[in-house]
């Protein structure tokens, strides 16, 4: 038994030394793993500065930062929800920084302390093999042809879906959601969970799908189309920020510069996200091609609990 103890100790020590290599810049990101991997590799190749990343959903990243608050580790945070950037700014946790490469980032995608890495938009993800007519508008999904065939991501779990629900209910009241609920639409987890049944055909469409995931699926040959309603949708910029406890602020700034450089933005576009810079092209609809619904973030997030409650009641069984 002592032998096993020894062996376990040796194994543990080996694991320890493997994980202990310290990075120069630590990035926590809610973005796709492949995106941060490519950005980190490109940045290290250009500058020689090492990057380590922790990737999870926005919620899990935030939980980790909250728990770590006494002794924080993260230098650069990339969230999938602008709300976190405003909140962190209010708490005074952010370093003001304007990257020289942010000159071509539109004003609504940057503040003194945060700048978008890229942008996704919410859309209807529709399966053309579902035997339903191609929808053009949000309201189409409440029609009888889509009876029991529509999925909505849960706005309590997806920040972007919350903004869509807030924007639509703010503009036109809860009528559309009542109709959707009456038509048998169901609320299904976060984004990926809502999309999967649509791919297999159990459902015909996602109401409010994050566009780049569906576009990536389409590129892989999935039977899925991404439709941006003419009446308008919301965008989900992914704010990138430097934390004021960072001991590597110069390297962190260089990382932000790199993400906003031509090379960095090309990597962002390669993942089917919209680049934050308006002068970088991408093979997908860009912000200028979409109608964006107005959203007063202060007011909307002030009423967050209320909105979520109304939504939950609307779709309660």
């Amino acid at each position, binding site marked *: 038994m002592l032998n*096993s103890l020894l062996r376990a100790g040796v*194994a543990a020590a080996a*694991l320890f030394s493997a994980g202990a290599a310290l990075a120069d810049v630590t990035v*926590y990101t809610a973005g796709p793993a492949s995106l941060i991997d490519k950005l980190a590799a490109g940045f290290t190749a250009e500058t020689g500065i090492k990057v380590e990343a*922790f990737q999870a959903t926005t919620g899990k990243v935030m939980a980790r930062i909250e*728990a770590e608050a006494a002794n924080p*580790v993260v230098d650069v945070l990339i969230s999938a929800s602008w709300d976190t950037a405003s909140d962190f700014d209010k708490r005074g946790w952010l370093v003001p920084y304007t990257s020289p490469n942010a000159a071509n980032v539109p004003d609504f995608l940057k503040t003194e302390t945060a700048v978008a890495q890229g942008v996704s938009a919410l859309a209807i993800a529709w399966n053309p093999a579902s035997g339903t007519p191609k929808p053009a508008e949000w309201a189409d999904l409440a029609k009888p042809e889509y009876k029991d065939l529509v999925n909505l991501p849960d706005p309590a779990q997806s920040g972007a879906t919350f903004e869509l629900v807030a924007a639509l209910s703010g503009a036109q009241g809860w009528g559309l959601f009542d109709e959707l609920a009456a038509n048998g639409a169901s609320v299904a987890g976060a984004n990926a969970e809502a999309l*999967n049944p649509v791919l297999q055909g159990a459902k015909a469409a996602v109401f409010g799908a994050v566009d780049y995931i569906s576009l990536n699926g389409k590129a892989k040959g*999935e039977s899925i189309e991404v439709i941006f309603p003419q009446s308008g949708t919301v965008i989900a910029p992914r704010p990138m920020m430097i934390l004021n406890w960072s001991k590597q602020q110069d390297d962190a700034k260089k990382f932000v510069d790199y993400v906003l450089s031509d090379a960095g933005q090309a990597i962002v576009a390669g993942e089917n996200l919209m680049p934050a810079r308006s002068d970088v092209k991408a093979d997908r609809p860009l912000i200028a091609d979409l109608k964006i619904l107005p959203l007063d973030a202060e007011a909307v997030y002030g009423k967050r609990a209320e909105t979520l409650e109304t939504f939950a009641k609307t779709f309660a069984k």
Partner: protein
Amino acid sequence: MARARASEGLSPTVILAAGGLVLVVAVPFLFILLQAVFPALGRGSLAAPFSAVSGALGDARLLGMALNTLLLGALVVALSALIAVPLAVLRALFRVPGALLWDLLFLIPFMIPPYIATLGWIMTLQPKGYLAQLLGFDLAAFLFSVPGIVFVMTLNTFPVVYFAVSRTVETVGSRYADVARVFGAGPARAFWRITLPLSTPGLAASLLLVFAMAIEEYGTPAALGRRAGFDVLVTAIDLRVSDWPIDLPGAAILSLVLVMLSFAAFLLQRWILTRRSFQTTTGKPQESAKRELGRWRLPVIALFATVAFVATALPLLAILATALSRTISGGLVWSNLGLSNFTAILSDSTGALRALSTSLSLGLAAALITGILGALSAYAVVKAKMRGRGLLDGLTILPNALPGIVVAVGLILAWNQPWLPVTPYNTVLILLLAYCCILLPQPVRYSTAAFHQIGDNLEAAARVFGASPLTAFRRILLPLILPSLLASMLLVFAVATRELVASVVVAPVGVSTISTYIWRQFEQGSVGLGMAMAFVTILITTALPLIVLSLMGRRGSLL
């Protein structure tokens, strides 16, 4: 039977056990407790104590969720027992054809991560799912209902009861029942009055584990329950930890409610076990002659085959079908099938192999550590002569009730303190600590059950002949509990290798495990790649222990 106890000081066994338990369980739990009391603990402040309690406990839905949690736990326990106990008893007392094969097949459901199994069932039973593609009908209405949730969770947990009960009944053997038969009892009466009651420790221990696993499981209730309007505590806890603004104190307080539920089950189990003695192992070798099934041969084979098909083959086939599909929307047609997802895994283009080796080493280390610590703790609780045994026993059950996500938060709070000179945080050691904490109850429960059946005179005899406490433990007691202990270590290995919820939060920067790898694939819409990784993992985690055990020549005792 009254136990003869010599009075003596603390043995090194007990000190080792207590130290290990404090490090692995008490430290993170203490910080969860502190977090519940002091909302700003994460920022190093003790301001506004208890200010979060009324908000978290004042939630109008709390009572409903607590009742749902209890209901779910009770139903999963009942159905697990209903499926597993008859199979286990048949396996233990009769010569079941293909016994080793059935053992292997019942091991696999435990190797399938619950979130993967659930996704597999969704893809099989939902409209236009695999069942509908093959046979033209779907069972979505059943799947997205409380019975559906219980069904899916039971398929994942019944092996715990099956292995524990078949091993215990085997140890009890038929000798005691034979005595009853000699005195005129019928076979049924001998079984109900002698064999089954003597097997209570294994049965009670495994049912307690199943209950704790069911109320702590996140993936299945989250994926199926929301559609059924069935909310449980774990989903509410997860929402508090994943939804901005993060509510760590609220999550900690709800976790304490969950801990209390689990503790109630634990006290019930302890009350059952302490009412009488179950000592059956006297040191003499057991005669392991099993009875023939006779004309029940075919029905019994059919029973085993049905359970194996539903619990093992169906989910495995669903996982394999998804992994082999080029696209999900392409469905089950030959032109859509290919090995591209598997080649992507094996070529390591996506970091899959590194994640595999990380998780396998962590699983192995966790199995060794929890195995040793579990055996020592169980000994301290059942056999050692000391005060505070109940406290130690309580510590061993705690993690069972703590949701993985809360253990993760507790570990970060505990080990990321700025004043610590060295810390496992942000190294893979923090994952190891998390796995050891979450999984320690498995070896402890199994070993405790085994110790309850070992007579005290064996150890006393060794001591009389001059063996030190450690030697007596190592040479006499450990070999006797080894079959149970190894079985539980195997389960630890399997679960640690695929643990998701804590891993997602505490994984050090730049490290991915099997489960975080799979989860990332799902998150980004690459379901096929995630399922291919899951399939490879299930193969490895099933094969590896078997190879190790057969090399050790101990296969017969476990499988």
